[in-house]
C-alpha cells in the first residue's frame, strides 16, 4: 500500500502504510495543510510534532512491525487545527498514559511515554475513542490565524 491523499467535503486525509518510513510524508502533509488553513507557524509546528509522535506510537507500539494502516484526517474548523488519527491496531488509549517524571536523573528516567507526553504538551485537547474500525485519536490545537489567510 502506498500513501493516499483524499479531499472529501472540505476534509483532507492521508492514509499511509504502518511504517516509520512514512513519517516524513505525514509531517509534510500536516505542515502544508495547517499552512493552507491559515494557522500560525508556531501552532502548525506544534501540531506537526504532536501528530508525528502519535503516529510513531501507533506504528511502533500499536502495530509492532505487523502490516497495517494509519489514516490522518484534517477536518475543517473555524478556530482550531484538528487532526484525527485512525488505525486498526490493538486498542490503545494514549490519553491514559501517565506523564513521565522529567525531573528524574538520567539513570532513573523512563524512556517510554515521552512521545505521548510531548503530544499532550503541544496540543490543547487530545481525545480517544474506540470505534468499530479501531482506534480514533483526535488532536486539537487552537491557532492564531495568519494575516492574509482566508
Amino acid at each position, binding site marked *: 500500500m502506498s500513501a493516499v491523499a483524499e479531499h472529501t467535503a472540505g476534509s483532507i486525509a492521508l492514509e499511509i502504510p504502518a511504517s*516509520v*518510513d512514512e*513519517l*516524513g510524508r505525514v*509531517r509534510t502533509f500536516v505542515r502544508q495543510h495547517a499552512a493552507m488553513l491559515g494557522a500560525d507557524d508556531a501552532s502548525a*509546528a506544534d501540531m*506537526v*510534532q504532536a501528530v*508525528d*509522535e502519535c503516529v*510513531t506510537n501507533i*506504528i*511502533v*507500539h500499536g502495530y509492532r512491525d505487523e502490516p497495517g494502516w494509519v489514516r490522518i484526517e484534517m477536518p475543517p474548523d473555524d478556530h482550531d487545527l484538528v487532526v484525527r488519527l485512525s488505525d486498526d491496531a490493538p486498542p490503545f488509549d494514549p490519553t491514559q498514559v501517565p506523564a513521565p517524571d*522529567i*525531573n*528524574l*536523573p*538520567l*539513570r*532513573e*528516567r*523512563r*524512556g*517510554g*511515554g*515521552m*512521545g505521548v*507526553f*510531548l503530544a499532550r*504538551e503541544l496540543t490543547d485537547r487530545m481525545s480517544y475513542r474506540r470505534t468499530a474500525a479501531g482506534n480514533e485519536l483526535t488532536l486539537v490545537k487552537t491557532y492564531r490565524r495568519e494575516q492574509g489567510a482566508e
Partner: protein
Amino acid sequence: MLQIASEQETTPGGKSVAVISLSGELDAASFGDVIEHARQLIGAGAQGLLLDMTELAYMGSSGIFALHSIAMLVQGESPPDPEQGWAALHTAGPSSEFVEQLKILNPQPQVDRVLERTGMKRFFEVHTDRTQAVASF
C-alpha cells in the same frame, strides 16, 4: 530525511573529539542510524562527541532516545534495546547526572524546545561556537 556526517578533531589538551553533524529531520525512521554512527566513532577511539544540530530542522522524541543511548555508549555502558520497547531506557542509564563526554552544538528552536520540554537539556552542555565547544572537552 536525515543526513549524518562526522569529522574528527583534537582538543588543545590532545583529546579526540568527533563532531557529528545532523541535517534534516530526526525521527523514528532515522534515530537508529545516529546511534550506530556514534557507536562506530566511539569504537574508533573518539573520547568525546559533539552533536552539531545547526542544520537539524526537526527532532521527535526518537531523538531523545538516541541522545540517551549515545550518552550511555560514550560512557562505556550498553544502550537500551529499542526492540524491547522504549521503556527499556529505565533499566540502565549513564552513570553520572551530567554527561561530560557528549555535548550539543546549536540546537534550532524546535529541537531546543524538545530538549527543554523533556528535561534532557540539563544533562548536556549546549554550545553555540564549534571551536569553543571542541576545546571544552
